[in-house]
């Protein structure tokens, strides 16, 4: 398989990744994590083509790039869905039952954290404290905060967002 045909990224995306990489002149192995972060910030996730580009630029085997990237929870390997859902698992949220909230969302969306649903509708991410402890447990949908959620309320929330995006007015 040729690197160009790997994954879903097209040539333009690789060009954009090159632009991100150009922000790190003389980058070496130590810069791998900041580079992965910058590329993810730009694209919302790490595509295979981009990881290959990073490996080439740093003269690092892509197995290493992938190994390091998968070691950290912060990196995603699928593009975000039209609705990106973040569940806070910080201490305050945990105390207020975020584990059951996460479980309810997983079941409603049928995806695990880090994944994107097949139809591209939803993606799920678990985040460490997002600094809204007063609202715990908290989830965000495309950046919008939803406070004091319960398993029941998040199930409704998911339905609501699913309907909204289908009607073409998702945010």
């Amino acid at each position, binding site marked *: *398989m*040729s*690197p160009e045909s*790997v*994954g879903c990224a097209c040539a333009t995306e690789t060009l954009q990744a090159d632009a991100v990489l150009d922000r790190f002149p003389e980058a070496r192995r130590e810069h791998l994590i900041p580079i992965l972060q910058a590329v993810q910030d730009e694209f919302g996730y790490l595509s*295979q083509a981009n*990881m*290959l580009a990073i*490996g080439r630029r740093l003269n690092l*085997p*892509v*197995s*290493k*790039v*992938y*190994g390091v990237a*998968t*070691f*950290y929870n912060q990196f995603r390997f699928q593009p975000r869905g039209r609705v990106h859902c973040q569940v806070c698992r910080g201490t305050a949220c945990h105390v207020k039952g975020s584990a059951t909230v996460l479980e309810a969302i997983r079941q409603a969306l049928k995806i695990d954290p880090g994944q994107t649903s097949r139809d591209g509708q939803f993606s799920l991410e678990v985040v460490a404290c997002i600094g809204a402890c007063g609202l715990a447990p908290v989830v965000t949908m495309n950046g919008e905060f939803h406070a004091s959620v319960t398993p029941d309320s998040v199930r409704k929330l998911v339905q609501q967002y699913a309907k909204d995006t289908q009607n073409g007015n998702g945010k």
Partner: protein
Amino acid sequence: MQIEVNNRMIEARPGEMLLTALRRAHVNVPTLCNLEHLTPTGACRLCVVEVEGQRNLVPSCAFPVQEGMKVRTHSPRAVGARKTIVELLLANHPDDCLYCVRNNNCTLQSLAAELGVRERRFRAERSNTYHADTSSASIVRDPSKCILCGKCVRVCEEVQGVAAIDFIHRGSRTHVGTAFDQGLNVSSCINCGQCIMVCPTSALREQSAIKEVLDALRNPDRFVVVQHAPAVSVTLAEEFGLRPGADVDGCLTAALRRLGFRRVFDTSFSADLTIMEEASELVRRLRTGGRLPMLTSCSPGWIKYVEEFHPDFVPNLSTCKSPQQMLGALIKSFFAQREGLDPAKIYSVAIMPCTAKKFEAGRPELGRDGRPDVDAVLTTRELARIFRLRGIDPTRVVPESADHPFGERTTAGKLFGATGGVMEAALRTAHHLLTGRELEELKVKPVRGLEGVKEARVRINGVELGVAVASGLANAGRLLGEVRAGRADLQFIEVMTCPGGCIAGGGQPLGADRDAVRARMRALYQIDRDEPVRVSHRNEAVRRLYDEFLDEPLSEASHRLLHTHYHAREVIR
């Protein structure tokens, strides 16, 4: 200096690790992650010992010796810690030893036995649900058997310079995998099998061809022939309890006949043939200003490595097929004609020290009429399994000689089994081609031995030839880097994928250390010392083959059957 170990004084050398001193004194401390000649990682902690004055147990592989230190290697505390480590490793290990290819030959299994593990004390909360990756022609990876010692990852990166695999994910999801967790077949893996050689369990093993070969042997419509590589006769006996370095060449031939092979051929014959072609090619490149340095092409891991990592050097590769493939091509052409056999009925088996040979046999450019020239490749280990299955001890049969027309060899062909051997054999014949005389001293000492890179300057007809020999692809990669950077004093480079050459190939008996490899190497050198015909151009069977069929080296027929071309290859890397 001296250190005290278990109330006994032992010799130690300043700067070395404690484990090294213990090993020298035959104090047996088990290890799982330690690798000879690579920096210790201290990851498995199985090698822990008690050192007086240290509060905690210390890993002996990563702890330097100190003047006056007092060590207890088997105190109840040390042994207890080791046992707990093994019990934890077993917590989510599928205990199907009876059905496992490493049964009776497994470090994890013997550790559990030695430490007296009799019950399952820990049970992992997460079940072990990995599937084996069988996508590669050479290697099977089974993460469910992996204990995460990391040796394969380090060998692949540090010794072979490939880095096809690494640890991916973290915590309880950690496993060893390729980039993007895809099949090994689309990765940069060059099929060398060195990861198998260091794996303490069956998490890495060869893609077995035993069933196919046994089926063919049972099939009355198949004419099943076999060839065995130069390095196999000096290692097979280890599987049957003999010391490393015992040569069972004739016994091997006889034992193969007992399995039912209709003809038993010697790959060392086609190694001699390779030398005729390759030395002629070198001479031609030297005379006509061809691309130099010429690189040898008999090691299939190396070929794939050049295709992937150094495509700019593809034109430097000799166009000679490997001895396995030369013989494969001759069996289905010259031999078939001579015997009046339909090539489609021939089933051609090769016994190799190598897992990459399995991949090589399946390369599309190396077959003809849509059929492979070599139908199945068995490693030395697989052959030993077949012998055991059939109740044959190949060290205890009366020796026989290999079959015509591919049964004769010189010691030069036999030398192919060790790093530097191809170079030595090629220099002997190139010298004869260029001068009409034999080298005064046939033994080319600078290219012998186990060093990773060896160089020599040889004078032929007043012209000085610069040659280099590398084994282990990280070494080869560095050498190519020098050439790319402008180094111009080398005309000919031999590369063997495995460190030490085929005697340490990825298909050889497991558990050999450097001393064992050295003994295997000495066995080949002894054959070269003891036998009279030591140059490939005096192989009578090779001469007859040229007279009757091929005409001369680099002839049109040779090019059709014995040469090929390789191309840049895109993989995920």
